């Protein structure tokens, strides 16, 4: 056999392994979730009961779907203005200045910090601060979790939209300047319109990341298995309920956690696909 053939076989088997692993994952998620869907049907998705008491066991995913949407949307709303201004600052206003280079470095650094570190910081620094500000429930809850989520996705969203803003051809900016446009006018009438779909895609990807973020949220959301009634109420997200409960679960409860995992898998998969599709269309 020549080395070309060997290379081909090695590469092919590596790709096959990836295919097998992801296929196996979907298979075991579906298989694990079957008892739950058998017991509750699609009602599982819209039921807000999570009652593990023996004999009258009932499980529904709605509290966690609600918790996930509340925290992710809130995080996105907090992240948007901050990361968007930062990316304009880095990508256009101060792109040649030293400070932009320093901030870009910091942003990349922050984007690489593991979730558990944010969680610890949120638990020991942010939460006491919020208690001092009068937050109920010992500072646990949807708002605190959203805040930490926002802090986590800001660097990611910033670096994505910064990349997209710097992709706008210099030619176009110069054309606008040559017509007498000011920097402000170039940003709002040329750069943002040209980069719009890419920026939107960046925020969809950031949203997808917020949906699945687990550790930090689990540590701060308060782990209550009910639909949160307000922003300062405790709750659980799809990811956090799994992290919080899988250790002691078996039977129908375990199946229900797996069903939630399957739903989360599908939702984040779809969100990511949409984001990537938009970016691909742009390029």
């Amino acid at each position, binding site marked *: 056999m020549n080395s070309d053939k060997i290379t081909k076989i090695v590469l092919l088997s590596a790709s096959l392994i990836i295919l097998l692993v992801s296929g196996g994952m979907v298979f075991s998620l579906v298989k694990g979730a079957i008892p739950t869907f058998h017991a509750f049907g699609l009602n599982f998705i819209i039921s807000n009961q999570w009652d593990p008491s023996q004999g009258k066991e009932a499980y529904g995913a709605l509290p966690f779907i609600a918790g996930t949407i509340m925290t992710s949307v809130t995080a996105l709303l907090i992240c948007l203005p901050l990361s968007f201004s930062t990316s304009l600052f880095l990508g256009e206003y101060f792109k*040649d200045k030293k400070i932009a280079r320093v901030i870009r470095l910091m942003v990349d650094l922050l984007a690489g910090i593991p979730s558990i570190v944010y969680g610890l910081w949120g638990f020991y620094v942010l939460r006491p601060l919020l208690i001092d500000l009068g937050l109920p429930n010992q500072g646990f809850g949807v708002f605190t979790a959203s805040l930490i989520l926002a802090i986590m996705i800001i660097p990611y969203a910033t670096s994505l939209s910064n990349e997209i803003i710097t992709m706008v051809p210099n030619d176009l900016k110069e054309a606008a300047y*040559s017509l007498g446009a000011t920097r402000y006018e170039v940003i709002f009438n040329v750069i943002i319109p040209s980069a719009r779909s890419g920026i939107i895609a960046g925020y969809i990807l950031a949203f997808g990341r917020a949906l699945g973020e687990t550790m930090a949220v689990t540590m701060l959301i308060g782990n209550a298995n009910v639909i949160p009634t307000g922003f300062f109420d405790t709750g659980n997200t799809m990811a956090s309920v799994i992290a919080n409960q899988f250790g002691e679960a078996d039977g129908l409860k375990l199946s229900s956690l797996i069903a939630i995992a399957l739903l989360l898998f599908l939702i984040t998969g779809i969100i990511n696909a949409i984001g990537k599709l938009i970016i691909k269309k742009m390029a």
Partner: protein
Amino acid sequence: MKENIEKIKDPIISTRNLSIAYDKGNYAVKQVSVDIKKNSVTAIMGPSGCGKSTFLRAINRMHELYENIETEGEVFLNGKDISKMQVIKLRRMAGMVFQRPNPFPTMSIYDNVIAGYKLNGIHIKKKEKDEIVERSLLDVSLWDEVKDSLFKKGTFLSGGQQQRLCIARALAFNPKVILLDEPTSAIDPVATSKIEDLLVKLKKNYTILMVTHNMSQAARISDYSLFMYLGELVEYGKTKNMFTNPKDRRTEEYLTGKFG
């Protein structure tokens, strides 16, 4: 001024000891003093990297967009020192056309023509806008080709049409001069000859200053030629005279294809 540099009466553009450096002390344009004749086509020639674009971009102060670029000396437009003019006014008086056609991809043909007004947030009546669009597109002989698709995106046009649209965009403010940087280098020969005809026609109302590295193009359409070499202005005069009887050895070598 040096003897190989022709003197012009009542010039529309004058530069005096214009020097430009991208990094400190490293000059891309060196001490250029030249007068450009009104209502003429003037070609800026020279081998690649000799500073043609750098010189052209000094006239509408494009270098100010970037830090670290140093400009020394003076440029006068219509007798006024451009460094003392408002940059917006200057850029409206000196329209610019780039090497690659660059219509705004998010705007229609119509909006591209009046992009200068839109970008600057100048509100004008619909009727006035229509007039500007029609006049500018007629000026670049594009009106008949696009009058039925004014609200389609400008990026749907062919390369040559896009470049004419960009010229129309530069004409919409009724500038005094049009600065073009190798405007036909990314365009097919048929479209190129259309643009050449157009530039000759436009000199009746505007002054055309154009960078080209295509000697035959300079010979075909320009009245005056400016030959640069290593950042210096080597020779400047009537194109006819320069092509038949170059005064400097370097000009002659360039025109006979010994370099560039």
